């Protein structure tokens, strides 16, 4: 069968889970915000918080981009609708040293949507993947300005993928593929829809912070990897090829009617491909994807009583995503995809300026490396190194209510990539890259915070 599943690639780590942190370039390890988001960015940060803090918000990711083909130099645009990414935190200061909390965030996810006429639709054209983390957190204040914290993550995942199947890769009854008898490359004949969910898996998040001096703070945190086992269904629907082979074609010759044309759609329909138990019948599908572990270290410099400068270095262990094995109920062999992802590092810089007693202005910049190597840049997530700029504002309405707003602009470096599968029996190769992906996004964050 055609190689369904290449689009199971994931990569996009989402760090925008709190508009305060987002506004200052995602820096939050050494000097967390007071909205409870430190449960994610450094669990030790909740130690010392007083009373209840409840916050919730949304980051809206409006992505745009496209693919320009080397050969035709025509551009296909990414057609994503804005993607909302929620976050929510509850913390409670049990005493001056001990605090506990509950957090909800989605640190890994993606959504890409292309027109179903895009040539890359054979790798995926309408895809969504989410991993939801629900975390219980405890933080404790030690002497000498040291805080520690940790939490248990209950992680759930869901995914939906859509792709077209390429008839040229599909085997005929002779054993040769349709491509070998001449059917052009990327001739669609079926749509594959795959939906799957994973059960809850357990992970952990640890952090430590140290106020080294009255103007310097240091911090570090580590989130463990979580392997999610997905189980779902794959549904296939026929798509008309509209190909009628002229008289003299090898199929008509084999059937003893060489002077007759051959309607490929009629031929395929007669094969019963979509019936129960058949190759393209509805079937269960299983796969596992590991959400990578990640760590961050950071420092915060109090440049003045009102201005804090923050620096974070974030590492994500994407090497865990080297191969992907997909099991289809009606397929004799598993699908094994080589991805060879690489570790990524993000350098973040931010500032937080208390312009007034109840008003904070923020800004930041970050430089994030790409996880996918040059040979596995695909339509699912045309991912690569990127520069991002942020602005933010925090405003306290009164002692109980405050809100944070943030804007982030993501500009990814144009990246060469492919729109086709790796060649059967060979690994992915940059030789298959046939054009240039561009990607950019505007992110808008809003978080409402309640203290009592």
């Amino acid at each position, binding site marked *: 069968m055609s190689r369904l599943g290449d689009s199971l690639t994931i990569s996009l780590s989402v760090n925008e889970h709190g508009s305060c942190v987002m506004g200052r370039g995602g820096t939050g390890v050494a000097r967390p915000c007071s909205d409870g988001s430190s449960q994610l960015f450094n669990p030790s940060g909740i130690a010392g918080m007083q009373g209840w803090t409840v916050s919730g918000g949304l980051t809206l990711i409006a992505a745009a981009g496209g693919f320009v083909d080397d050969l035709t130099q025509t551009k296909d645009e990414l057609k994503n609708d804005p993607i909302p990414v929620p976050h929510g935190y509850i913390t409670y200061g049990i005493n001056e040293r001990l605090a506990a909390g509950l957090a909800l965030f989605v640190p890994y996810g993606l959504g890409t949507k292309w027109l179903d006429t895009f040539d890359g639709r054979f790798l995926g054209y309408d895809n969504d993947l989410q991993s939801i983390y629900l975390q219980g957190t405890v933080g404790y204040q030690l002497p000498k300005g040291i805080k520690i914290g940790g939490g248990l993550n209950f992680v759930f995942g869901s995914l939906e993928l859509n792709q077209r199947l390429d008839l040229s890769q599909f085997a005929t009854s002779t054993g040769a593929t349709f491509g070998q008898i001449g059917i052009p490359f990327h001739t669609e004949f079926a749509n594959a829809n795959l939906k799957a969910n994973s059960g809850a898996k357990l992970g952990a998040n640890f952090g430590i912070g140290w106020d080294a001096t009255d*103007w310097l703070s240091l911090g570090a945190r580590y989130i463990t990897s979580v392997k999610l086992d997905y189980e779902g269904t794959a549904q296939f629907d026929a798509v008309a090829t509209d190909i009628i082979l002229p008289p003299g074609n090898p199929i008509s010759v084999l059937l003893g009617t060489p002077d007759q044309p051959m309607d490929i759609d009629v031929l395929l329909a007669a094969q019963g491909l979509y019936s129960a138990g058949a190759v393209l019948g509805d079937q269960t599908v299983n796969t596992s994807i590991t959400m990578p572990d990640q760590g961050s270290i950071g420092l915060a410099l109090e440049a003045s009583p009102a201005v804090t400068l923050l620096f974070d270095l974030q590492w994500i262990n994407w090497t865990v995503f080297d191969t992907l094995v997909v099991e289809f109920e009606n397929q004799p062999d598993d699908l094994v995809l080589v991805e060879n992802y690489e570790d990524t590092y993000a350098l973040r810089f931010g500032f937080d300026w208390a312009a007034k007693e109840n008003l904070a202005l923020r800004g930041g910049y970050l430089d994030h490396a790409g996880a996918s190597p040059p040979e596995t840049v695909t339509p699912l997530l045309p991912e690569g190194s990127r520069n991002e700029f942020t602005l933010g504002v925090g405003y306290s309405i009164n002692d109980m209510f405050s809100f944070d707003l943030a804007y982030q602009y993501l500009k990814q470096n144009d990246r060469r990539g492919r729109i086709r599968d790796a060649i059967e029996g060979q690994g992915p190769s940059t030789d298959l890259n046939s054009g240039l992906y561009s990607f950019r996004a505007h992110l808008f964050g809003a978080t409402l915070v309640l203290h009592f």
Partner: protein
Amino acid sequence: MLRTHRLNRFVAGILVAVPLLLSACDKDSLEPPTASSVSLDARDMFTRYVAIGNSITAGLHSGGINDSTQLEAYPVLLARQMGLDTPDETTTGTSEFNVPLMAGPGCPPPYTNIFTQERLAGGDATTSLFRELPIPTYVNNIAFPGADLVEVFSYYDAGIVPSVTDVYKTFLLGGRTQIEAARAMDPTFLTVWIGNGDMQDAILATADPGNASIYPTAGEFAATYAQMMDSIDTFQNVEGGVLLGVIQATAAPYVSSGGAYFLASQTIPTLTVNANCLAQQQIPGTTESASVLVPFHYGAVLMGMAGAGVPTTLDCSVPEVISTQEAVDMILTVVQYNAAIEAEAAERDWIYIDPNELLQQVAQDPTAIRPFPAFSPGDPQYLTEPFGWALSLDGLHPSGRAHVLVANALIEAINAKYGAAINPISVQ
């Protein structure tokens, strides 16, 4: 003092940030096919070169086609000289000029001996291992063997005669016409060499070769050719092209004059050639004459019998032989075909090349295009090039060396017209 310390912290922070701002700006770039050996002024014209044609353009040699013969075809040679990346044995299907390569010894494998009909790797006329994997993502050489003019844009014309070569419509183009396949490529430059098959059928016919009903009239041909060009005109980004004329099939060594058989009979006692085989007829409007023409498939049988000691007579009044009137009609019709093609080229300010002029130059060397096949095993060209070095073993299709000459003729014309500065292929 406190203020100074805070300022230092701020400066330190900025110094940490600056390297960040300077990093992560490396961008990849688009890599369109680049005719790197072409002058800058003409380079964009050859970004998507597409070749339309029939068996010659597809690379059929010696009655067979495989990846080797396909890669010797003039479009591949031309593309390579332009500086476009062309496929080889290790192709990944992503060259800048792609060819739908046939796998294994061929489909069918080429002859290794035209007289015994032996083919490469012990194959026969039905041998086929289909296309090579991986199939290319797109195809630039969209010619297929057996393509008549009308089949460039239609497979269901009432005039199409079923043929074993119809299988190539699927093998090489997946059921698309050449116009459909070309449109998918959005060509910037085209070479079109079509029409040879229409007239070639007249010398391959076994029952009554040369009969005028076998090939289209000049008017029909001109109308069909114009229809094809109208389709090509709908392509959006064509910047230039070359139209090649139809080869005079009567000049192909696949047919030999009755006089040549008469001369051969002087050394073969068992072969008698009647006097009617020496007939000639002046071609109107020229000082040249047309001879009675004996197709190879008919003459070779007689030569085989005579060579085996069986008394054999060649009588040129039979319908299996092309009469002088039929030959004259064929020659004049091709002249009219080519006038129509030249007019279509002129209308678009494209290049027109008359291949017959090139063939006449090559034919000056009698070892290049033999007037009479090397039927004798004692002839040094008997096994390897019985029709001359410019022809493959089937006597109809050019050899690899001849494809080089065609490519060089194209290069010379393209350079003159478009200032392309493409280097010709060195001829040894």
